[in-house]
C-alpha cells in the first residue's frame, strides 16, 4: 500500500512537471535524432568520406596521366581545380580549406624506369585527423603501386611472356582487383550488409542518454529532503527500502519508456530526415533484457547520486561530469578499439561499456540472450551495489537529520 501510494504520487508529479518531461523524453529523442544525422553525414557509405584535395601534375608522361586517372576514379576523394600557384595551394591546405595537396614532380614518368624513382609529394592540412591521413595515404600508395607495376615493370612483361606458356602473360595487372573480397559480417535478413552509422551509433548514444535520468531523479530527491517531506515520511514509519523502491520503480518505467522512444526515433523519425533506418536485430528478448538491466543500473546509480549530493546544483554538475567520464572511458565517445591498452582495460569497468557491448551484441552481432547475459549480469550487479550504497547512505543520513 505505501509503495503503491509512492509510485502513484511520483507519476502524478512527473506528469505535472513539463520541464522534467522535456528533459526525460524530448531531450533524449532529439539527441538521438541529431547524433544519428550528424554522424550519418560523416561516415555514411553512400555519401563518401568527403575528402577534398588539390592535385598538381607537373609531369606530362603517360605514367603521371595514368596516376591522375586512377586518383580521379576514387569516389570518396574529390579533386579541387585551381589556377593558383603551388605555394598558394600549400597555403590553402595549411588553412584547412583543402585537406591535402598531391604534387607529381616533373620527370616522374621518366624516373620510374630508374632504380631511384621521383617521389610524389603529399601534404596534409593541420586539421586532418590521423585516421583520415592514413586512409588517404593508403589510397595514394595503392594507386602509385598500380601505376608503378604498369610502367616500371612493363619491360619485364615481354620477357616473362617469352618464358610462360602461350597466351598467358603472367602479369595481368587487372587481376589485382580480384585479390581481395571484402565482406561485413553484419547481416540483415540473412544477407551480408555494411552496417549503417545509425546502426553503429544509436546504441552508444542510447546508453549515454539513459544515464542522464540521474539529473531529474536526484533533484527531485533533494527537493523532497529540503522540503521536509522525507522527514515526515520517515516519521510515519517508512523505511529506507520503501523510499528507495518508491523512486526506483517509477523511474525504471520512465527509463524503459525512454529506451522505447529513442528506438522509435531511430526506426521512424531518422529516416524521415533522410537518415538510415535503425533495425532492431532478431533477439527481442535479449534487447528487453539489456534494456531492463541498463535501466536498473542507471536508476540505481541515480539514487546513489541523489543520496550523495546536498543540492540540486550539485546533482546536475556531478551527474554531468560523471556521465561524461563514464562515456569517455566506456567507448561511447571514442571506440574502445582505438584506445591504448591501459584505457581499454579501464573501460572494462565502465557500466556504459557493458551497456554498449550488450546493445551492440543485439544490434550488430545478431547476439541472443546468451551473448548479452554477461553484460546484463554486470549491470544488475552494479545496480544492486549502487542501491546498497544508497541504502547505507540513507541510513547514515538518519543520524544527521
Amino acid at each position, binding site marked *: *500500500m505505501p509503495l503503491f*501510494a509512492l509510485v502513484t504520487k511520483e507519476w502524478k*508529479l512527473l506528469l505535472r512537471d513539463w520541464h522534467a518531461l522535456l528533459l526525460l523524453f524530448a531531450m533524449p529523442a532529439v539527441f538521438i535524432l541529431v547524433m544519428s544525422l550528424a554522424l550519418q553525414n560523416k561516415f555514411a557509405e553512400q555519401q563518401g568520406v568527403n575528402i577534398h584535395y588539390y592535385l598538381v601534375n607537373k609531369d606530362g608522361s603517360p605514367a603521371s596521366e595514368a596516376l591522375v586517372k586512377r586518383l580521379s576514379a576514387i569516389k570518396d576523394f574529390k579533386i579541387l581545380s585551381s589556377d593558383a600557384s603551388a605555394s598558394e595551394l600549400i597555403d590553402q591546405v595549411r588553412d584547412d580549406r583543402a585537406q591535402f595537396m598531391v604534387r607529381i614532380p616533373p620527370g616522374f614518368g621518366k624516373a620510374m624506369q630508374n632504380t631511384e624513382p621521383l617521389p610524389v609529394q603529399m601534404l596534409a592540412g593541420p586539421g586532418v585527423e590521423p585516421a583520415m591521413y592514413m586512409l588517404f595515404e593508403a589510397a595514394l600508395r595503392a594507386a602509385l603501386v598500380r601505376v608503378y607495376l604498369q610502367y616500371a615493370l612493363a619491360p619485364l612483361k615481354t620477357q616473362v611472356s617469352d618464358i610462360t606458356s602461350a597466351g598467358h602473360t603472367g602479369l595481368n595487372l587487372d587481376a589485382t582487383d580480384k585479390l581481395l573480397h571484402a565482406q561485413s559480417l553484419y547481416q540483415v535478413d540473412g544477407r551480408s550488409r555494411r552496417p549503417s552509422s545509425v546502426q553503429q551509433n544509436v546504441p552508444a548514444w542510447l546508453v549515454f542518454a539513459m544515464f542522464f535520468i540521474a539529473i531529474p531523479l536526484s533533484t527531485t530527491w533533494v527537493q523532497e529532503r529540503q522540503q*521536509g*517531506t522525507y*522527514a*515526515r515520511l*520517515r516519521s*510515519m514509519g517508512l523505511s529506507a527500502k520503501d523510499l528507495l523502491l518508491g523512486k526506483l520503480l517509477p523511474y525504471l518505467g520512465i527509463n524503459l519508456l525512454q529506451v522505447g522512444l529513442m528506438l522509435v526515433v531511430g526506426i521512424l523519425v531518422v529516416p524521415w530526415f533522410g537518415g538510415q533506418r535503425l533495425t532492431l536485430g532478431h533477439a527481442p528478448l535479449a534487447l528487453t533484457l539489456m534494456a531492463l538491466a541498463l535501466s536498473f543500473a542507471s536508476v540505481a546509480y541515480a539514487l546513489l547520486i541523489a543520496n550523495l549530493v546536498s543540492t540540486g546544483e550539485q546533482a546536475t554538475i556531478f551527474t554531468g561530469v560523471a556521465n561524461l567520464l563514464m562515456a569517455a572511458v566506456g567507448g561511447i565517445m571514442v571506440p574502445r578499439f582505438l584506445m591504448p591498452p591501459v584505457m581499454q582495460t579501464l573501460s572494462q569497468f565502465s557500466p556504459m561499456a557493458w551497456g554498449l557491448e550488450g546493445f551492440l551484441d543485439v544490434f550488430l552481432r545478431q547476439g541472443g540472450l546468451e551473448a548479452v547475459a554477461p553484460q546484463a549480469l554486470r549491470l544488475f550487479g552494479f545496480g544492486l551495489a549502487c542501491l546498497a550504497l544508497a541504502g547505507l547512505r540513507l541510513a547514515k543520513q538518519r543520524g544527521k537529520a
Partner: protein
Amino acid sequence: MIQIEGLSFRYPGAKHDVIRELSLRIRQGSLFGLLGPNGSGKTTLISILTGLLPLLSGKISIDGKTLPGQLQDIQAGSALVPQEYAFYPRLSIMENLLFFGGVLAIPAYELRGRLTAALAVAGLESFESVRAEHLSGGLKRRLNLAIGLLNRPQLLFLDEPTVGIDPQSRHFILEAVKRINARGTTVVYTTHYMEEAEMLCDEIGVLDDGRLLACGTQEQLLNNTHSRELMVTLTTAPTVQQSGILNTIPGLEIINRELRMAHCTEADLKHLMKLLAAERLDICRLKYGYRNLEELFLQMTGRQLRN
C-alpha cells in the same frame, strides 16, 4: 506520558552535545510548550522523539513504550508536523491527503472519514481540489497540520506551526490545536512566539544550549522567580530632595520620570504610594505584577543574539 531521562545527543563530527543530560516528563493529555532560542536543541529533541534521529544515550519512553525498540509502535500513535511545508506543491490538497493516507496504510473503509475529519479540523473543505502550490501561507500551514491528523495521533509534535502567517490564520491554527488537545491528544508545541505559549500551553519547558532550564506550569515558572515588577511613570520628574526621599525604598531606581523596581513586594508598593502622595507627585502610568513569559524567557536564556 513522555518520560526522558539523561538524554544526550551529538551530531556526527560535532565537537559538542546538542542535548545535554536532559530529563523531562510530559504528562498525558498535556499541551506542552517547548521554548528555546534558535539552536537550543528543540528540533533535535523532537527528531529523537519521532525516530528521525537515533537515541544515542539516555532513556525515552512514550506511553510505556521505549525507544528505539518500540519505535514503530510509537510512530503509529504519533505524528510530526514539521516546520517546513512538508507536502507536494504540485498535488492538490486532496491528493496530498490521499497520498499520505496511502503511506500510512489507512484502510479504504476508514480513509474517507479520516480525510473529512482532517479537512474539517484544518478548515480546508472548500479548497480540497486546489493545488498546494497555489495556496496562501496560512492555508499551507493548515494543510501541513491536516496531514498530521490523518493517523489520529495520541501524541502530536508541532514544530513552529504558525511561522510566517497572518494573525487570522494563526488564530485559526491555535484554536484548532486547542480543540485537538481537548479531545485527549498530547501536544508538544515548539514556538518562538511567547504569547502563543502563554495562550495555549498548560506546561512549558525552557530549553537552551541543550539543557532544560525550567519546566512547569506558567504559574509555577512565573512564581518561581519570586518577583513582581513595578514600573511607574510620573507626570514630572522628582526634584533632588524628592528623589532622596523615594530612594529610602531599597531597590528603587529613578531615571528621570521613570521609577523601577525589579522585585517589589506589596508592602513596598503601598509604601511608595504613600510617599508619592505625600510629595504630591502624580502618576501618569503604573505597571505592577508578575513578569510575562517573554521576560522570563529572556532572563533565563540571556539577551545575546543567537546563531
